[in-house]
């Protein structure tokens, strides 16, 4: 059941300077709205009630996909539909295009943005329902108790909070070594993808390097061409094929030599820990090997090694192994 939204003021900047200035002014009681699908759910549930909405849809600098020679630059306001159909992205980074095309439903992808997809908050139902958990500034985790419904929660790196990253595009950006450009106080800083996603051990109240209350704004996503044109794979498993967030998803980019042996590989799983999880064991294991049944067996064995399932999410560990195995299998054809 949803409620009428609280009353807020809508600010519609038309340039990046204006948007950054507004964020500096209203950092604490402001809220950046891009596609706005998730934002409105927060408001309708009356869990978040910011006084000012900063609508960045009029900021032209935040749009567009450009080829910049050694990297491509994606504006955070590019919608997921545009991203998944863009020819440049399809040709160079099919893993990202596939991931963007698997998010939510067509109507949501039509307005949902890549920036919003990677900056979105976790889907932990307890946190979303307004429970005063660690992530909400409290001192309990309601999802990690003997009776808690934690089917969709974490396998790795639980530090008080057991929430997971909900994004489908985050693992894809993770294997492509993307860099995020963040604006604050009129200055730009570039953050690598590994530092962009933040686990509870660094800050339990946010999921990315974008610090909302300090007026941060994600202004660009850069993807170097290191992995352009490599063999790539994306797969998502969810309860429903549409709308639903991933139970586990996998993204992979690999360079395969002429003789069929794997020269290098980056593989990551989403929805198994608070940040996209790079499977470093698998990556070092497969180098120099040819993708075949023996290698698949090894990959299956190491992919989910170290997983610490909660009460109801044991199934995620074998699911993760199987997805890693399927990613490697895609290289054998």
């Amino acid at each position, binding site marked *: 059941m949803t409620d009428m939204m609280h*009353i807020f003021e809508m600010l519609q900047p038309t340039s990046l300077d204006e948007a950054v200035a507004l964020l500096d002014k209203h950092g604490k009681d402001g809220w950046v709205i891009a596609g706005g699908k998730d934002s*409105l759910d927060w408001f309708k549930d009356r869990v978040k009630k910011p006084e000012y909405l900063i609508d960045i849809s009029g900021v032209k600098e935040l749009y567009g996909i450009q080829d910049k020679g050694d990297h491509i630059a994606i504006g955070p306001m590019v919608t997921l539909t545009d991203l998944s159909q863009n020819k440049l992205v399809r040709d160079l980074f099919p893993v990202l295009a596939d991931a963007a095309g698997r998010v939510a439903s067509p*109507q949501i992808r039509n307005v949902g943005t890549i920036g919003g997809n990677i900056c979105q908050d976790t889907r932990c139902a307890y946190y979303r329902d307004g429970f005063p958990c660690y992530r909400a500034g409290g001192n309990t985790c309601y999802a990690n108790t003997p009776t808690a419904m934690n089917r969709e929660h974490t396998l790795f790196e639980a530090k008080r909070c057991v929430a997971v990253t909900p994004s489908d595009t985050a693992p894809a950006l993770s294997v492509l070594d993307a860099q995020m450009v963040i604006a604050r106080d009129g200055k730009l800083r570039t953050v690598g993808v590994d530092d962009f996603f933040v686990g509870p051990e660094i800050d339990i109240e946010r999921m990315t390097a974008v610090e909302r209350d300090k007026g941060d704004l994600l202004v660009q996503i850069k993807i170097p061409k290191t992995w352009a044109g490599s063999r790539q794979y994306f797969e998502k498993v969810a309860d429903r094929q549409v709308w639903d967030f991933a139970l586990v998803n996998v993204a992979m980019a690999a360079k395969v030599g002429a003789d069929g042996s794997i020269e290098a590989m980056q593989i990551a799983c989403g929805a198994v820990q608070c940040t996209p999880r790079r499977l470093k064991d698998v990556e070092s294991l497969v180098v120099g090997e040819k993708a075949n049944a023996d290698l698949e067996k090894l990959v299956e064995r190491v992919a989910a090694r170290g997983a610490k399932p909660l009460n109801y999410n044991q199934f995620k560990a074998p699911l993760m192994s199987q997805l890693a195995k399927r990613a490697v299998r895609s290289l054998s054809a």
Partner: protein
Amino acid sequence: MSWEVKDAETNGVGMMMPPDPADDFGPEPGTVEIAGNVPGEPESWRPPTMSRRAFLRGVICSGVVIASSGYLFSSNKAHAAAKQTDRLITLSVNGRKHRLDVTPNETLAHTLRYRLGLTGTKIGCNRAECGACTVIIGDQTEYSCSTLTMRAQGKEIRTIEGVAQNGRLHPVQQAFIDELGPQCGFCTPGQVMSAVNLLEKNPNPSVDDVRQALSGNLCRCGAYEHYLNGVMSAAKRV
């Protein structure tokens, strides 16, 4: 109901008593003569000239107005700071321009249904999960329940009311009727909008294209195959 102390409402000890509810409602209901009531039959509060449907609609509408006015006209600091001019917008719906005074927290589905009277757009889940509120904004489908009206300014909005042209049903609508698409019909406006948008972009879709295009619309009667057949046969007629 007032709580003013009157002589008649204080008892002997001087304590305040609530007024008798009967005072506010006039004489006992049973004694009122209403024209049109047949003697000996249970009387109705409904005016005799009004149909049952019109009476119920009036009751429901007044309830909606009372319930929503508290939200729409309530005030806080942010609201007070907003300029009146910010709220006056022009919305282009089905080719007609409407000048509207909307609050920032109003969703497009709310505006369409309760300000413009375009109740063909349904509100199902009200959180972008069911697709009953699907409308076409610009050249793409969107959930109007999760779109702020203020952000839809300057874009061409098409609702289910604008699909039929010159009194003739759109081929998708006719095909849905022929293929028995609607059962309860609540999701149908959304399904039609998704299908119309698909056929405008891709007049010869494959079955998979149609499945993909309608995947953002739930049908709790489970008539997905009927809708699928409907779009495939509409594609031949477009």
